């Protein structure tokens, strides 16, 4: 069996088996589920490493043709997988991180009632994610794309006893689908333009030149709309904080490491297209910058530990899009790579804290927890995200900053800079509030199955930067070379880069210090005003609710009650009623008096004769 096929189907098989077991047997020991749940992702993770290894070192391109999905006229969609460098790079972290989070989840979900169901969904998610990444043509990719959204929906609303959770799931899926709307439209347009020449990525990129630039921009824009939805960028981001309603492993896997990065992957995948549409690229960069800044600002007034992380995810994704926007694809991808590790780690740590503290999530209530291992891990992850050298994100973020600087869009660079400072602020605010307190609370000890994956991720967070060691430190930018994407290289002189790095780090250190002063061992957090604009997330949610949701509901009522009921149905009924009424009037004519009947006959006769007269009047 083909490697990729096996890689893809592993989680699916697991999921199906789990479903069958749930369905057929009422009582099964949890370990059966655990075994199955880990089997599929495990196989996938192993194979992913295998594939990436060969891809990296041997430049081997794996592919697998499953079957013809659809073939009508020119519209040929092969269900085919292909692991070129980009895909191989993606599965390199997607599959192993998934596997690690699975392990973590076995501990996190231990003993819960829907243990089996959880892993079934989880495995399906992995399947779709792999499908997304490995797909050889955009339609299959779109299936994976939608699939991850769907499973995300199921997982966010996993604790369905609380109906709000399911609403959060709904919101996530709906907003995702708004993005998908753009994606799908883009694909359709793309197909109509050049689809007859083959619709796998290779042919698409080969034929791109045939499309005129206006249409190309439209397609590029629509594709990016898809990415906006999936990667929670302005304006489609509102689902992400709400999505934290799901179990924490879900947040770790889906809303940090994998699914939300699909947007980035997609834009990178369509790099040849975006290279042809510089306007849209810059637009992407702006959106990314604004998102990064916005999320960072909001996160500074957030109290829910998971939501802080959610906003930080959004912010980090913003960084990636900035990089994509200026054409630094591999830089963005590299940041994504690093982000997968440290963000997963952050979430897992947060999850461990939450699990240890009776599922409280407000950092003010969690203050002063005693969990040294978690503290260390979280601390490292926080340092990574704030891009303190030598942790991995330092390299990736620095690369982004220099790319931005080099691209000449100083305003974007500036926005990114502010956002990165704010990142340091809110991340350390969280850490300081949680751990640097006077009073101490003891916590339950986290299980081994949770700690070990986190340990692995901690290591990865620290060292992942090695993979794309920049030239400035005598690195070889391995990943960039491996990916070999058509980048717009904005080289900055090494000196400038060093200055940038230095200034950057310095400022960050300053911010950290300020944060320390403000939050560590103080009760500043208690005094913060929860009614400010920032604490209310700039009223975006409320705005959406008022404009979109309310409008739709008003329309719904208007359509249903006013148009359908009052206007159409009632007038139909009124017509019937009027008809009946007219009948009643005729019943008065039918009054039973024989003389009237004779009169009617007479009237008939007379009118007949009048007709005749007019007809025959001029005969003679």
């Amino acid at each position, binding site marked *: 069996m083909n490697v990729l096929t096996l890689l893809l189907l592993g989680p699916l098989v697991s999921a199906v088996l789990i479903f069958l077991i749930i369905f057929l047997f009422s009582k099964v020991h949890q370990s059966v589920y655990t075994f199955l749940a880990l089997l599929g992702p495990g196989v996938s993770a192993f194979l992913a490493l295998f594939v990436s290894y060969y891809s990296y070192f041997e430049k081997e391109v794996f592919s697998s043709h499953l079957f013809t999905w659809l073939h009508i006229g020119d519209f040929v969609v092969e269900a085919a997988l292909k692991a070129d460098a980009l895909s191989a790079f993606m599965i390199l972290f997607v599959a192993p991180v998934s596997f690690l989070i699975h392990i973590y989840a076995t501990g996190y979900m231990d003993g819960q009632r829907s243990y089996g169901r959880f892993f079934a969904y989880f495995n399906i998610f992995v399947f779709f994610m792999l499908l997304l990444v490995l797909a050889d043509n955009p339609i299959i990719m779109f299936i994976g794309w939608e699939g991850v959204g769907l499973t995300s929906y199921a997982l966010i609303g996993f604790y369905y006893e609380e109906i709000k959770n399911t609403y959060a799931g709904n919101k996530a899926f709906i907003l995702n689908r708004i993005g998908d709307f753009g994606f799908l439209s883009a694909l359709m347009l793309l197909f109509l333009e050049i689809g007859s020449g083959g619709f796998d990525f290779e042919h698409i990129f080969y034929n791109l030149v045939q499309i005129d630039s206006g249409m190309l921009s439209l397609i590029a824009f629509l594709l990016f709309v898809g990415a906006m939805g999936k990667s929670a960028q302005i304006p489609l981001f509102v689902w992400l904080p709400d999505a934290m309603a799901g179990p924490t492993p879900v947040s770790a896997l889906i809303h940090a490491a994998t699914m939300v990065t699909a947007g980035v992957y997609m834009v990178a995948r369509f790099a040849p297209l975006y290279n042809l549409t510089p306007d849209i690229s810059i637009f992407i960069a702006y959106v990314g910058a604004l998102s990064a800044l916005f999320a960072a600002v909001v996160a500074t007034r957030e109290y829910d530990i998971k939501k802080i992380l959610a906003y930080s995810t959004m912010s980090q994704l913003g960084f990636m899009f900035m990089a994509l926007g200026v054409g630094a694809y591999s830089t963005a991808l590299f940041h994504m790579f690093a982000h997968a590790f440290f963000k997963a780690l952050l979430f897992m740590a947060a999850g461990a804290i939450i699990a240890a503290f009776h599922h409280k999530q407000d950092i003010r209530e969690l203050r002063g927890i005693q969990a040294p291992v978690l503290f260390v891990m979280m601390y490292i992850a926080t340092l990574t995200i704030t891009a303190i050298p030598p942790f991995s994100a330092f390299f990736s973020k620095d690369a982004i900053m220099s790319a931005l600087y080099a691209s000449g869009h100083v305003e974007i660079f500036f926005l990114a800079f502010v956002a990165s400072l704010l990142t340091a602020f809110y991340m350390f605010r969280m850490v300081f509030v949680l751990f640097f307190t006077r009073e101490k609370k003891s916590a339950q000890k986290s299980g081994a199955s949770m700690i070990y994956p986190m340990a692995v991720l901690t290591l990865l967070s620290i060292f992942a930067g090695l993979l794309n060691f920049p030239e400035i430190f005598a690195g070889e930018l391995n990943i960039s070379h491996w990916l070999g994407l058509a980048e717009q290289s904005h080289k900055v002189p090494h000196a400038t880069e060093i200055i940038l790095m230095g200034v950057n780090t310095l400022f960050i250190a300053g911010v950290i210090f300020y944060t320390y002063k403000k939050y560590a061992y103080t009760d500043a957090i208690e005094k913060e005003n929860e009614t400010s604009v920032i604490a209310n997330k700039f009223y975006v949610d409320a705005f959406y609710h008022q404009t979109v949701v309310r409008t739709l509901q008003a329309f719904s009522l208007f359509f249903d009650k006013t148009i359908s009921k009052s206007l159409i149905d009632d007038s139909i009924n009124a017509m019937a009623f009027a*008809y*009946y009424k*007219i*009948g*009643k009037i*005729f*019943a008065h*004519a*039918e009054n*039973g008096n*024989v003389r*009237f*009947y*004779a009169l*009617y*006959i007479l*009237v*008939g*006769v007379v009118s*007949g*004769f009048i*007709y*005749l007269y007019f*007809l*025959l009047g001029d*005969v*003679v």
Partner: protein
Amino acid sequence: MSNTFIALAVPALLLLSAIFILLFGLSSYYTKNRAYYITLATLFIAFFISINGIGVLHSAEILPQIFNSMIVYDTFSATFISLFLLGGFLTLAIAKSFVDKTNFFTHESFVLFLLSLFGMVILTMANELLTAFISLEIASMSVYILVGLNRDSLKASEAFFKYLLLGSFAASFYLLGMMLIFAQTKSTNLDVIAEYILNTDLNSQLLVVAGSMLIMITIMFKIAAVPFGAWVLDVYEGASLPITAYMAGVFKIAIFAFALRVFLKDYITFQAIYDPLIIGGALITMAVGSLLAVIQQSVKKMLAASSVVHSGYLLIAFASTGEATSSAASAIIFYLFAYFISAIGAFGVLSYISKGSDNLINYDDLNGLAKERPIIAASLTVFMLSLAGFPSTIGFIGKFYIFTSAIEAGYTFLAFFGALSAFISIYYYFKVIVHLYFKESGHLEVDYGYKVSLAFIVISALIVLWGGVGTSLLLDIPGINALNALSKYSLESLGL
């Protein structure tokens, strides 16, 4: 059997049987049952004699020397005679329970029944206006009396009064019209009149046109076209159910048969003059009939009002005879058959379940019938569907022909209005079905007895269905094609 023999034997048989029963009624052997069965047997035999005349093309004047070419026996009349006899037979057979349970069905009523059939038989054969008028009067008067049969009922007397009065009124128009035609053409023979019309121009036809219109008005009165048919609701309501069935099913066809002969022979030349009148009549008839039918609370009156609508459909076809002569005329014949069998069935069911009372049979009286008597309910449903023109029943094929002929004649809008009133008719016919099947019954289960009546109701229902889908593909029973051929032959025999 020679055609002359059939032509003479059938009316003779009816007449003799009538006289026999009249005398028999005075003897001590008389029982109502015997008279009933004698009548049935007469109709049965007459029917079997008459159907020998259908299906083959023939046309001959009967005893032209003696009768002075006043009656003609052709396939056309043979077909209709068979229809009347069948209709009379079915009406009477289904009315068995009614006849038994009431005391006003005396021997004279059978006599009148036979005599009215006699009148109709002559009417279809009549080729001359005065003969037609007299035979029409024979039939009408018998029916007037049959309507007023139940002297104890105020309703019946009133219905008799109205029908008689208005009937005489309308008849005098016929005579006036006949006079005008005679004044111009010096003859009352249809063939002579036709010849006169062909050979002269409009200036010499003024009175023919006017007189023809007056005759047409009498016909309109008899078929209850609006505004001449205001009597129909009251008379149908007042008459006892079998008589209503008889009027609606059989008598009406007789009028149409005569009308068709007159139209095709004489009026066809005036088509351009009369068409707007007939079209107007058709439209207003359908419209008013539908309006009246919709508001009725009783099934019997609803059927009465809907019979007005059916006259409207037929007028559509009459209007189309000018342009699409053959298809319109055969559509009329087919539709008449379709309406006849459905109406007889529908009224028959009502008379079956009314058990001799002069109830109007309100919609609510039908409640729950489907549970108690599924066969009856199913049959009534079939009749309703057929009257509504629902496909797979003969009524649909009839409407199909009529609308086709209208479109063929270029009157697509007439077909459209026909379809509209058919649409409205769905309401009142389906209301019956609603009450039959969906409403809970309020009354106790009753035993209606009379398997024979039931059997004939079911047979009628089967004919209705077979007429809608029948094909010789499956079974070797004459189906729609045969009926078509029948109407075609009868049409051709008019020598057009």
